[in-house]
């Protein structure tokens, strides 16, 4: 069984199915692909290797694989070990990203309901014509018996409301990186929520919810510099006149040829090494912020749109899952791996950890980690037989 149908869960399930192992994926949301399936392509005139399309491809593999059974809208309630693991499922809290309930509307206005399908057509097959999850296709079993468990329950994006001075949720034109992804995924464009116009001046603020002592989030989320810089580059390519500023503490490496990529960014984007704190709304519906510029002089920035590069934080169910599975969390609240050299092994035999459940990761690193978890789980299952 794989807990979680995000990119790590999909990859692990697919790798095991390729070795003729039957897999159940239990996903609490109403679609497969997790957060990553909602990410947009960030290509300029060339691919920037963000990996979003890999998620789409992996999802296609999984939904077409007969050895994989998908349980959408379910979560694990209880696990007992009696030789095999006996797993009891309960209804999941289907939290679709935009809190839409589009039952019935899918036939007439499917794009409005795409969010509930992770924007991927490969999830559409789990739904009936009325737009409800089809129990024939999404698994009904309330009890499973499995040989091994891969925990790929993922992360939750930092809730930007916890940094109240940014006024996220209050000012329309302060959005998160996740909002930007969804907007681009659904419409292929980026526009301001307030007037649906393409913004001319955009600010990205890095490290929102990461490397933040006051919040107790003492980790780098590892994915935000890559996604923000790639998004900014993609926007600059699509809208050459767009003026983009990146506020940062330390730029982290992006991709395999990071030096070259960073050089390119330095040419296209404004970098300011400070993190602004307060956001105000101007009369003409722009966002104003003040900061010290590179020379140490007070400066003021007025932006049409501010994007908060929110980070990766431990999953909402992590504590509950530790109780169900009898494994531990690390000091940051992610699942504790045995050690750095075996980062997919949990303290409990037969339970393996994959992807961001273990700690912040980018898409490609999650996939490699999930492959490793699958490898360990396959070994375990074969040895048990």
């Amino acid at each position, binding site marked *: 069984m794989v807990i979680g149908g995000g990119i790590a869960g999909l990859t692990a399930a697919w*790798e095991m199915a*390729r070795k003729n192992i039957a897999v159940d994926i239990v996903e609490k949301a109403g679609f497969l692909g997790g957060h990553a399936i909602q990410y*947009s*392509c960030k*290509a300029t*005139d*060339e*691919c920037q*290797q*963000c*990996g*979003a*399309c*890999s*998620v*789409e*491809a992996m999802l*296609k593999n999984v939904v077409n694989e007969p050895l994989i059974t998908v349980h959408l809208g379910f979560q694990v309630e209880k696990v007992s070990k009696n030789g095999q693991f006996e797993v009891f499922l309960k209804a999941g809290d289907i939290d679709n990203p935009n809190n839409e309930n589009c039952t019935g509307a899918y036939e007439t206005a*499917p*794009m409005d309901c795409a969010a509930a399908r992770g*924007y*991927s*057509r490969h999830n*559409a097959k789990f739904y009936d014509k009325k737009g409800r999850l089809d129990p024939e296709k999404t698994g009904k079993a309330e009890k499973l018996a499995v040989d091994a468990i891969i925990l790929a329950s993922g992360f939750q994006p930092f809730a930007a409301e916890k940094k109240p001075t940014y006024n996220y949720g209050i000012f329309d034109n302060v959005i998160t990186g996740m909002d930007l992804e969804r907007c681009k*995924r*659904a*419409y*292929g*464009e980026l526009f301001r929520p307030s007037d649906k116009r393409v913004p001319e001046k955009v600010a990205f603020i890095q490290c929102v919810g990461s*490397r933040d002592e006051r919040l107790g989030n*003492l*980790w*780098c989320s*590892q994915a935000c*510099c890559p996604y923000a810089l790639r998004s900014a580059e993609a926007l600059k390519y699509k809208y050459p006149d767009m003026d983009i500023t990146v506020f940062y503490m*330390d*730029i*982290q*490496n992006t*991709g*395999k*040829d*990071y*030096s*070259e990529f960073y050089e390119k960014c330095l040419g296209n984007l404004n970098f300011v*090494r400070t993190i602004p704190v307060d956001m105000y709304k101007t009369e003409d519906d722009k966002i104003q912020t003040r900061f010290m510029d590179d020379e140490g002089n007070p400066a003021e920035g007025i932006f049409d749109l501010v994007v908060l590069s929110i980070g990766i934080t431990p999953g909402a169910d992590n504590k509950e899952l530790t109780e169900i599975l009898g494994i531990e969390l690390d000091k940051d609240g992610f699942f504790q791996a045995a050690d*750095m*050299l075996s980062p997919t092994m949990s303290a409990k035999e037969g339970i393996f950890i994959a992807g961001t459940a273990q*700690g*912040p990761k980018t898409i*490609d*690193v999650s*996939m*490699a*980690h999930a*492959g*490793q978890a*699958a*490898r360990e789980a396959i*070994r375990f299952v074969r040895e048990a037989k």
Partner: protein
Amino acid sequence: MNTETKPTVEMEEITINTDVLVIGGGPTGVKAAAEITDNGYKVTLIEKTDAIAAGEKSIEALSGTCLVDTRGIPGDFTVRLEKKGEIIEQKVGAIVVATDAYYEPLNEDYGLTLADNVLAQSEIEAALDSDAAAFGKKTVAFVTGFYHESNPMALERILSSALVLQGQGCTVYVYVNNIKVAADGLDLLYKEVRDNGGTYFKLETPPEITRDGATLTVTSEDPVLRRPLEISPDLIVVEEAILPDDLNEGLAEILRIHTGPQGLLQKNNVHRFPVSSNREGIFVIGSARQTCGLSAALTDAENVALEVENLLGDGKRTVAVDQAVVDRGKCVICLTCYRCCPHGAIYWDNRAIISPVACQGCGICASECPMDAIQLGDFKDENMQKAVKESIVAKDDEPNIVAFCCQNSAFEAAEMAAEFKMPLPAGLRMIKVPCAGKIDIDFIMNAFVEGADGVMVMACHAGNCKSDQGNTYAEWRVADARRMMAETGFETERLRFVTLASNMGSEFSSIVVEMEKTLQKLGPSPLK
């Protein structure tokens, strides 16, 4: 509304060699060898130096050995190894490249020569290991990330040494540009060094370092007080770059695999991640493909065990008989196909032969072959031309767009647009191709001859083609076709080349709708 060619299903079973060659006897190579052995395959591990990290006994380990030549195809490679002048020939089914990285001190960047009071990172690590107390109460300055972008592995080494020094009562300064904390636990380590009294100078430009005999002076602008700041440390520690093995370049040539940025193996292409190369049956792992630490390298080693098993299985492979076939009569062994195949799947005896195991079915060779001697099972020329004919819609009021779509990207995007009922022109017809590299100029021209108002060639973004250059070939052919159209006075706007990704349904929709508008303005094709 889609015209798809019918797949053929004639299959045959072939037997393949399941032995594996692992190149590189460091911890990554040894781990990969152990994992692959664990799956029941026989492994030969070679290492250029005389030192092989301890491994299992069942692995044949050859030290002082290099790969000098490789021939053949996945499942049937012949490798020639050289061990101290002696040539050993072996047959293997798969090859794993697991070369290690090495450290190179960057002291010259800072105008420094290594000395008693200027140490490279490796030197201080060794010195701390043997006698940390010797550093008691010294002032130590680390410099990193000014001339080369640094990385989390380098930072972790610096901070670990800094902590040990602080334990000896040392005062630690770290001169750094971007602090590369993007790894598990590093931000915490960074703060620990600071909380122990360490000082970080985050500078955009390098500090000035002078040495006058035993006296070192580091001058920088204090970023907070905005005035020059001088420090005279007892010791400066210079960062080290992590560089890929010098063997890589030669290996890439011998194995006919691509190199990527900074002398690493494997192009920067998401379809290759984590451990694949452009050639089936040849894998690259750990420091051979990325700047990484041991943990990530071992992750690769486990992933390669999965991939090797996927390829070799139980030694039997079922392959499509006609995936890509060379017509013996037409082939003149010009080797165009051999040169253009991105997967190294083609070899020859008295004609070109395409390995069904190595072939990825992209069809670039079929489109490039000057003799039209290569046909692709599911996408034969006759089927493609038939698909073109069937895509012609004889209606005057709606422009007929024939869109050749790569099955990996544009076709997926089109399906997404259709699923979510995004606007699509009524006269749009898609023809699925295995790769944009299989779109012959003939197909494009024929679509116009048959009466299409517009033709679109829809490929993957540059750097995202599964076959590396399929999109480039497609772009060239479109440019050629446009030139021919311009010469005959045919509107070139009727032919467009665009690139898309599989998840760009809405972009697909807006691009084809825009094309429809263009064609409406131009009116029906004069060839209609």
